[in-house]
């Protein structure tokens, strides 16, 4: 066990996988000499050289398309897209390329690439640098989408993602990079597709992703003071989704709050609500509550941005409302 920042845990995962497998290489904007704007790739160009750690031009569209075919022809690229807001530029490569080939080429290709990016608000970065477009990504068949919330999961899931033969979009959060946590030593792998129960509870289930997990844990503390026992489930993997974990928890609590930092309408929280409708309708004593960003652009000014973001208070309020 070692205490590490989330960014350091990611860096360790990249270093270990690159050392173990010469076909793993990294590319992205400012990830080499500078070590990445969030310092996740620090020191890797020095260690592995300029062929395996590449600074790129600002060309997200082609970079993503290149990751797809590089992955089909013998390498395991790890591409960094600086902000999740730029994901639209990667979407043709994801929706019209990465998504289709395994199936339409009759299972004859593997596509082991990882697209790392980071999203989310709270840092005053404005309408074009603060979004979580989780839903657009999780909508795409044939790719995985994961979003660890702790340093240990960041490391273990990034290693699993690099070894996965399907494309994996790996969602980080700008406000998680400096969060510290214990990370087990050695070659830890956290399988993709498994949720983690962070807090057991019996009255209401809080299902959250990425930084919203931190808020859900805080909300559980607040609810405890209200005399309510909340279960907190870190979904970790948006696609594939661990629906069994969801159903098991709801079968116990009969009340659910789903939390995601994306917009509400057609957002990832909508799928969680619909999934619960599909698989656990009869267990519900109240409608699933969605806690999300309101459906509007993210403003710059601090009081505006802060008022808009989902947080522990809003989760608590939603939980209380479902229990009324």
């Amino acid at each position, binding site marked *: 066990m070692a205490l590490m920042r989330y960014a350091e845990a990611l860096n360790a995962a990249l270093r270990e996988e690159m050392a173990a497998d*010469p*076909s793993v*290489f990294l590319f992205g904007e400012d990830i080499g000499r500078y070590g990445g704007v969030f310092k996740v790739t620090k020191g890797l160009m020095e260690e592995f050289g300029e*062929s*395996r750690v*590449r600074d*790129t*031009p600002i*060309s997200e*569209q*082609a*970079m993503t*398309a*290149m*990751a*797809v*075919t*590089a*992955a*089909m*022809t*013998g*390498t395991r*690229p790890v591409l960094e897209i600086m902000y999740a807001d730029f994901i639209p530029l990667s979407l*043709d*490569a994801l929706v*019209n*390329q990465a998504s*289709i*080939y*395994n*199936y*339409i*080429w*009759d*299972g*004859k*290709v593997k596509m082991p690439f990882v697209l790392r990016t980071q999203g989310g608000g709270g840092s005053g970065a404005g309408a074009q640098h603060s979004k979580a477009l989780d839903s657009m990504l*999780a909508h795409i*068949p*044939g790719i995985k989408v994961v979003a660890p919330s702790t340093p240990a999961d960041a490391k273990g899931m990034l290693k699993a993602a690099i070894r996965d033969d*399907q494309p994996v979009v790996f969602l980080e959060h700008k406000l998680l990079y400096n969060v510290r946590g214990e990370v087990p030593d050695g070659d830890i792998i956290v399988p*993709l*597709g*498994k949720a983690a129960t962070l807090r057991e509870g019996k009255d209401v289930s809080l299902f959250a992703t990425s930084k919203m997990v931190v808020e859900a844990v805080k909300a559980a503390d607040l609810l405890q003071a209200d005399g309510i026992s909340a279960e907190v489930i870190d979904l970790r*993997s948006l*696609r*594939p*989704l*661990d*629906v*069994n974990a969801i159903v098991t928890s709801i079968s116990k609590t009969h009340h659910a709050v789903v939390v995601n930092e994306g917009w509400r309408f057609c957002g990832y929280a909508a799928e969680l609500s619909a999934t619960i409708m599909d*698989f656990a309708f009869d267990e519900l004593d109240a409608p699933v509550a969605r806690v999300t960003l309101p459906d509007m652009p993210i403003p710059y000014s601090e009081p505006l941005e802060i008022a808009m973001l989902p947080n522990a208070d809003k989760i608590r309020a939603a939980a209380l409302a479902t229990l009324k």
Partner: protein
Amino acid sequence: MKNTPSVEEHLEIYRKMLMVRHLEEGLGALHKEGRTRGPIHRCDGQEAVGIAATAVLEAGDKVTTTHRGHAVYIGKGMELRPVIAEIFGRETGACAGRAGHMLVADVEKGVIGGNAIVGAGIPAATGMALSMQVMGQPNVAMCVFGDGAAQTGICHEAMNMAALWKLPVVFVLEHNQFGLTVPSDVQSSVKDISIRAAGYGMPSEIVDGNDAVAVYRAVGAMAERARRGEGPGMIECKTYRLEGFSTSDMGGYQTKEEIAAWKARDPLKISRDALTADVDEAKLVEVEAKAKADVDEAFATALSDPMPQFAIDEACNPYSEAH
């Protein structure tokens, strides 16, 4: 002359061009009978580009192509039957009927693959070249793309990166004078698109795309250069699409004079004329008969092959356990 195909190589190119022509004409006939499904994009008149360009490649090299890729599929070594069976959605198709004619691939043969998102084949080849460079492989990637595709943003991004990193990729521009229905001058701000290569510090050359030998020489030299690690280059092949954009085409935008002028310069005729210097007529007739017979047989077999059966693709399941 360096990079000139040998007589055997040229004859083989001629044979493959003929097969593709018969393939295209066969598809045209079946379309008229209502026996095709979805749009089919024929490359009649452009065969020299796809066939001669891929003729310079080695087995381990890789190629991407467009929605109009039949010549590339055959040129890079795919058999007729799986290509035709794929075009007709058969279980025996190269991709079990899932891909259809625009997206055919044969990973082992290095055809990876057709692409119906215009422009997408350009970064696709570039990404394979990146993979080759990272792994230190002695191969090259090739991209056959259209004059319409050259206007896409992704073309610019991919060419800049290819040049910047000296990736082993050859960009073969199949300039057939048209996008979908609009002529090139309605789409491109410049006539000779390869002048843009200078904007990436890449060499380029313009060739008669209907002359298989000219295509072979120019592309061959560029591929050798790329293989030596000297970076990418572009060959602009001037050619012409003799048929409509696709089988759904209602025509009317290509002039008769233009079509006639290009028909007079049919790549099959140009190659046959050149070959008569070294190959006797009987041999040519034999090759021609064989090409026709092979295509006929492939059509007959493919058309009697079974259709596939649908099954959900579990690899796409959004839940981590089956439900």
